């Protein structure tokens, strides 16, 4: 039974375990973003937040305690200056865990453990991208694709600023989840973060609009490469399998409203013609 036991053992002796966690916390403070297994990330997050609290306290005792824990001396001043400033107003929750895909060798669940509001905040990037895509989707509701390509999406920053004050049930250009993420990400950041998100969203919209062109070019390049290889092998009339690059299933193009399970099932997911029958799900 494991009722109420707080910490994991990781199949290691206590000394090994403690040193491993200290190393992980030190690496997290050094790089502000590390990738490790999910279990290790969860335990490291707990410890790291306590050490950041020591950094916020900023007195002799806490300095000595942190010094006893951190394994790399250059990391220590960062804890008492950078992190203390960054998290001055934030009451706890200084780390964030993103679940990634399982590792290929042993199917271990991998996670990205990062310090909140770090210069390479992953959640900020993803939120900015999602905001960009949703503004584009909104534009596509009223405008034709060609029109959107020609005009682009302006004033992303203004749209983003408007979203900050809305609550869950108000309807606007963003989905409720994206709006909530945007508000969370902006909560302890200043005005310049708004500009940053607006810029990233606009840039991402351009990327989305340029993707079909880029993919067509990649396709042509890959085909010509195959043709060149076949010609060198001495087969000038090479037909080969077309297209060379693999087709990706279940991808939602901008403006797509159907759910992912439906897209992923493809032709099998189409509901039956008779009204009585349920769709294949």
């Amino acid at each position: 039974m494991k009722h109420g036991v707080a910490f994991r053992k990781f199949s290691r002796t206590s000394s090994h375990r403690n040193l491993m966690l200290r190393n992980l916390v030190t690496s997290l403070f050094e790089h502000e973003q590390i990738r490790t297994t999910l279990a290790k990330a969860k335990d490291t997050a707990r410890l790291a937040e306590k050490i950041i609290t020591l950094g916020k306290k900023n007195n002799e005792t806490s300095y000595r305690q942190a010094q006893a824990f951190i394994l790399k001396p250059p990391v220590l001043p960062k804890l008492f200056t950078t992190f203390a400033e960054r998290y001055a107003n934030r009451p706890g929750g200084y780390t964030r865990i993103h679940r990634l895909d399982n590792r290929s060798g042993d199917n271990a669940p991998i996670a990205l453990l990062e310090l909140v509001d770090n210069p390479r905040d992953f959640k900020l990037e993803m939120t900015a991208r999602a905001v960009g895509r949703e503004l584009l989707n909104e534009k596509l509701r009223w405008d034709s694709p060609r029109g959107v390509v020609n005009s682009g999406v302006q004033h992303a920053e203004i749209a983003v600023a408007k979203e900050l004050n809305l609550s869950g049930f108000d309807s606007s250009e963003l989905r409720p989840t994206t709006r909530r993420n945007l508000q969370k990400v902006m909560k302890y950041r200043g005005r310049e973060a708004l500009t940053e998100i607006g810029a990233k969203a606009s840039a991402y919209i351009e990327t989305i609009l340029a993707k079909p062109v880029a993919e067509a070019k990649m396709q042509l390049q890959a085909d010509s490469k195959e043709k060149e290889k076949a010609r060198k092998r001495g087969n000038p009339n090479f037909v080969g399998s077309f297209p060379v690059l693999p087709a990706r299933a279940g991808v939602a193009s901008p403006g797509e409203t159907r759910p992912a399970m439906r897209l992923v099932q493809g032709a099998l997911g189409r509901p039956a013609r008779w009204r009585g029958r349920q769709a294949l799900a």
Partner: protein
Amino acid sequence: MASLALHQTRSFISTFRSSWTQLPVAASLAANLELRQKSFSWALPGLQSLLELLPPIVLAVPKSKISHSRKSMRSANKGLKDKRNIVNCPACGEPKLAHHACRACYSSIMARFKGETKRLATGATKRMSGGSWLTRKAPLMIESPKDS
């Protein structure tokens, strides 16, 4: 052969313990065997002969080959289960697992970060070399085509 003997030893010992009252014959025989052996040896006394005294029901074995049909029926529940937690990434639209980060977005973001650190590192070392447009700072968020 040795492993078979060891297995028989274990099963013999467990059955010996459990059926202590039910097989007094075996018990007395075991005691007899131990008394008879004057010289010391590491080998256990006469296991093969004792094994023959145990009823065959103790040694379980399948009676006949399991038919293809019955084998398949037992394997009916062993198939891989479908993943129902597939959603579209809100950023790139590719299918991804719910509550997980999108693989394509993650790799492209990390690749961009790596590119930036590399550019900063090389920029610091060869500062005013009058390099081509590649060494100058690239615009903020344009992904290279190979990221998609």
